């Protein structure tokens, strides 16, 4: 029988990330009272979780002590058995409570994220003034877009399942089901012809609509700099790969990670294009990124040096028909 183990301490992880980039024009957006309240609730939840945890701690300590004592005996006496059963039942109940608290906290976090997201959407929907529209047509500078994409990857939720539960589709490397339909506003990889002269490319795009009759998506190129209107493409369903909804936690669901050596499509750092690559190393933690080798025949080995790509932008390889023909 092994000893009972526990993870580390609970920390108020990323409850409200603050960004040190100075705001422009002296205009800071106020935190709305709802969000402030929600943050306060979140804080209370995290505190309670820690309380639960401390409560459970003593039980675990007793369990471990009992194990130690038991080792000294030649035969396991029914007394110890009885005692251990009781203790484990208690510990289990404690753990359940703690999980319950954590669940509540995570839900609160999701709520806050949604609220903030909506606010953001509302504030960006209104063009500041006519000059802005004419001059820059409201688009984001490319460098800024890259930062935002990084941020999306950072904010991507981690999948949490019941013990023994298999990760659902779109968690980590688990592909979407065949009948899966991307929703408008979803970000996807789409294989399009960006320029009539060039080869097709997998680009990062946003779904506009889906025509279920023809099985075609209309997608916008996410990179809009230099265009007055967004570049739109019509692509068949086969040419669209949804981005994963959840990150896979390497410590709990390693099966949802791509294996080293596996061929994938990965977003080349600081671009909006996906290229074929091979997994070099898996991420070790939830926050870490894959290390991948991009296919690149300008290098002697045929691959680029290892580059880091977040889980969100590493997708299962999909051979297109044209490629197969070749």
């Amino acid at each position: 029988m092994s000893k009972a183990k526990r993870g580390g301490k609970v920390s108020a992880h990323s409850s409200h990330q603050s960004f040190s980039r100075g705001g422009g024009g002296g205009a800071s957006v106020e935190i709305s009272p709802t969000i402030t309240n929600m943050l306060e609730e979140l804080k209370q939840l995290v505190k309670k979780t820690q309380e639960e945890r401390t409560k459970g701690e003593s039980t675990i300590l007793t369990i471990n002590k009992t194990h130690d004592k038991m080792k000294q005996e030649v035969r396991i006496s029914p007394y110890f058995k009885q005692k251990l059963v009781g203790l484990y039942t208690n510990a289990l109940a404690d753990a359940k409570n703690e999980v319950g608290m954590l669940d509540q906290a995570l839900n609160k976090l999701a709520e806050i994220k949604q609220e903030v997201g909506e606010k953001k959407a509302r504030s960006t929907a209104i063009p500041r003034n006519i000059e802005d529209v004419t001059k820059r047509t409201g688009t984001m500078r490319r460098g800024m877009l890259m930062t935002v994409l990084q941020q999306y990857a950072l904010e991507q939720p981690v999948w949490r399942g019941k013990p023994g539960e298999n990760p659902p589709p779109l968690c980590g490397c688990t592909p979407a089901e065949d009948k899966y339909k991307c929703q408008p506003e979803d970000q996807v990889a789409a294989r399009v012809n960006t320029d009539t002269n060039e080869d097709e490319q997998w680009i990062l795009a946003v779904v506009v609509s889906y025509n279920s009759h023809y099985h075609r998506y209309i997608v916008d190129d996410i990179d809009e700099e230099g265009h007055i209107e967004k570049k739109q493409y019509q692509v068949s369903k086969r040419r669209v790969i949804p981005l994963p909804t959840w990150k896979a936690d390497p410590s709990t669901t390693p099966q949802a990670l791509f294996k080293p050596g596996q061929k994938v499509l990965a977003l080349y750092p600081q671009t909006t294009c996906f290229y074929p690559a091979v997994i070099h190393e898996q991420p070790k933690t939830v926050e870490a990124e894959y290390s991948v080798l991009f296919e690149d025949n300008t290098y002697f080995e045929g691959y680029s040096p290892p580059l880091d790509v977040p889980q969100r932008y590493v997708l299962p390889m999909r051979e297109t028909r044209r490629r197969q023909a070749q």
Partner: protein
Amino acid sequence: MASSSKGLPRRGGSALQKIAQKKEHVKQLPRVKKIERISMYLSCQYGACSCQGWRPPASQETLRLSDTCRSCRHPLENHCIPIKEQSDEQLDRILMVVFDMDNISLQARSEREDIDLRKNYNLLFHFLKKNMLQPRIPPLVHDKIGTPPFERPTITKAITNFVAYKFNNLPQAEWQMMYDLAKMFLYCFNHWKLETPTNHAHSSATDDHKVYKENYTRWICFCHVPVFCESLQKFDTTHAFGRTLLSSVFLVLRRQLMERFTSEQEKMIPEKRNLILNHFPRFLNILEAEIFSTSSPIWREDFTTGGDVVAAPSPAGSSFAPSPSSAAGLAGPLSVGPASVGPGSVGTRDYPNPSSFRASYVIPSPASVNVMPSPGQAHFTSPQISMSGEAADSPFHISPHQSKGGRSQPNYDTSSLDVGPMPKRPKIEGQDSFQVASDILQTVTDPRAMLGPETGFFDEQVSRDHTAKHEERNGIICFQLLHNSIKVKPHDDHLIWLLELKQMFSRQLPRMPVDYITRIVFDTKHYSLALMKEKRVIGGICFRPFVQQSFAEIVFCAVAANEHLKGYGTHMMNNLKDYCIRHSLLHLLTYADSTAIGYFKKQGFSKDIKLPRPHFVGYIKSYEGALLMECELNPKIPYTHLSDIIKKQKTIVHQLIERKQAEIRKVHPGLSCFRERGGAKRLELKDIPGILETGWKPSGEDPRTSYQIELESDIERLGEALSNVLTELKDHPISRPFHDPVNEAQAPNYYSIIKFPMDLNTVSERLASRYYNCLRLFISDMKWIFNNCRLYNEKGTELYKMANQFEKFFINKMKSSGLWYDINA
């Protein structure tokens, strides 16, 4: 008296305390005893007696004025004539001088091995002796030694300049830190014992020993001895000396300081330890570069702020620092001319003593923009922004000024001490606007005020190089100047980095042959500014300086593919610009291929070459299919800080506008003159009530010609003239798409993008209804047609080109009919 092994009192407090105690003790002596002590330095007044000083008789229990001198046998009375009648107070004062003289002569005797040093002490001794009976010891004046400050700008001033020049654009907290470090540096320097000339000769081989010796003598007389001899006027080292001394002792000073700090680190409080061990070395490195740079603006007397720097043209080719490590700092005797001694009257000034140095420096820091701090003193004179006049020649002109309210405290402001009174600047808003600006700056620089929920992140106004600068400050990235050389073997690391740079260039510039890149990168005439991350090269600019032609040619410029779009390119170029300015290279030239033109345009390059052709033709090769582009550098601009400065200026201006608006908020009733029967046809802008109150001024000149003015007075004739033009426009074949209003079926979303649609037929209708009572209205309507077309259609499309062509045709027609003028003028 207390003396250390070298015979000099230690500068620590204990020795000084002992001296003070002894002085107290001497003051307690009976009057006759005091007279005796002073008399030792007074010559005998008896007849023609040549005795120089009283010598007490061999054994004497009680002293009387009638006792006779051991050497001349005349009574004490004869020795003490000049002081006999002095008051007790005066006597005490003279006694103190005598006490100091004792100390000095003791000191002189202990300096056996160094004759020059003894001479110095003797000099001081005789000086004091000569003046001991004066009611006040005058400042030491000596032909050979001179009077402080010996050189201008002084070290204090230069360090002040340095902080202003290098760190003004850092955020408040970091600026404060640098400011504190500067203060600490000055403090340490003032309490540092200079090496004796002999030691100095051992430790640094390159210096001019004569000059150092001279400075050392000065230091002894004005800075060192006065510490324990209060009758001599004390000067702080950093106030008395300038560049010559600092550059000759900097390396030693730095080494000793760091050694001491390192050995004492256990005793320090953690914050201080962090400051000293982590940031001080960096501070010293940056300082070193400036001290030894021949063209650094910090040594300019007329330096005012970070922005207002005019780099002195350095002697051609003299100072191209090859790389930070290869002796950029150590090499070369710097222009060590005769120290410029200011005209007299300097000595009478009161300099702060070390204790006031420690005084708290309360600065309501607006300082992080462009306000020059004065590390020397506590009180910070309120800076003022000059908004006009002078502002024209320097866009970043914010400089400290003395505040209006008179302060009782003597003004130690170093800038005014060392440079003399600041030139008067026209005051526009005066104190108020400063108040406003500092308020605003406090809000802008206060991290708490600017912390919103995730908004900053998506702020599109963040400048391109913001992230890169942030990363450089946090040490994530750094810059390295690399250079291959045959004379001096480059550091191994540098060679490896050059190799990495070559690899990076050849990967990013696949059209360039590898051997060509290799040849250029390793060429000894070419330099490379490399961007480093985690000790690897991730970007770089390879350039060749033409010092005598005062330009540099950029040969390669690239950033590794996976590090694109992080602002590194912009930051790299800005660093290069600053570097070039430091070396008086005021033009950057480059042959840009089609893919690079966009980048160079963003970096302020244009195909419009300002440098006269003879300056570069024959110096640089021209390339097929590449466009020669140039960026002219303005030495007044700190390019790496430009975006921050502009952003802050914008903020200030916006806030000023807002405040102004709040002040004059007033709602005028709508205009009724058009509604009234037979009302006005036309109203000048200035006649609209309230317009002038906002500060708007009508532009001086009427851009219209007299013919146009005359025409506009007669709407019939105007209509006729316009109608002629319009007919010609409509007949032009290219005008087809502009005849009718745009149909949204053909142009999706047209009206969501175009808010002011216009077309030729609408213009015709307006003309018929006599809407156009002046040319301006007509021209602006026509402009909407062209601009709308160019806005909706992408550049390069057929329609876009047609709009351009049609506009040209329109302008030509208007000009030939005498109807054209620039309505935006």
